């Protein structure tokens, strides 16, 4: 089965440190999303890309978060500096803009804890 791969699965870091999360989308998918899961907000959209171009990153705190796609096989989400309120599970999802009916495929997530 094709899958979206996220690394690391778990990350514990101290406040103020830089955190980088990585995502390998499914080969051939041209749309990539970053979501964050919190208890209060559910799954919040942080940013998304189509054909590696950023389409919307309005969900991200711009002063500390950045999202990039250096190439079609890698998407990154960086937090610098990290804060305790960033503790959450971060999901990457990929899809094809040619097929709307089946939704998008999510990775297993990166559980981030900032202490």
């Amino acid at each position, binding site marked *: 089965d094709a899958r*979206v791969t996220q690394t690391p699965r778990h990350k514990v870091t101290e406040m103020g440190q830089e955190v980088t999360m990585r995502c390998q989308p499914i080969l051939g998918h041209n*749309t990539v*999303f970053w*979501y964050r899961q919190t*208890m*209060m*907000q*559910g*799954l*919040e*959209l942080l940013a*998304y890309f*189509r054909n590696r171009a950023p*389409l*919307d990153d309005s969900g991200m705190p711009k002063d500390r978060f950045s999202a990039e796609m250096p190439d079609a096989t890698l998407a990154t989400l960086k937090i610098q500096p990290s804060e305790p309120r960033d503790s959450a599970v971060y*999901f990457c*999802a990929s*899809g094809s*803009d*040619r097929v*709307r*009916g*089946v*939704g*998008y*495929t*999510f*990775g*297993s*997530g990166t559980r981030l804890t900032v202490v």
Partner: protein
Amino acid sequence: DQQVKQNSPSLSVQEGRISILNCDYTNSMFDYFLWYKKYPAEGPTFLISISSIKDKNEDGRFTVFLNKSAKHLSLHIVPSQPGDSAVYFCAASEGPWTAGTASKLTFGTGTRLQVTL
């Protein structure tokens, strides 16, 4: 502002009975709706979807109903099985959608379903 709302954080149903999960939305531009299921320590997985031109879509034990006038949709699981115990997320996207665009999904906060023996 939560555009997709799942007002029941949890639901417990006996095995074999019907599970009904509800979802309300406020954005009139939403025209495509999806349900995802999520197990612990895994990412959400797509379950079933419905376009706004329909009011019902069925896939095996899962049926999604859409009431556009009420801005409400529901997921019915019949019969419920212990393996259905998971968190269910309702999601919506805005139209119009055509190949060549990317539809972002707006999610609700999820409902935890527990199917008991």
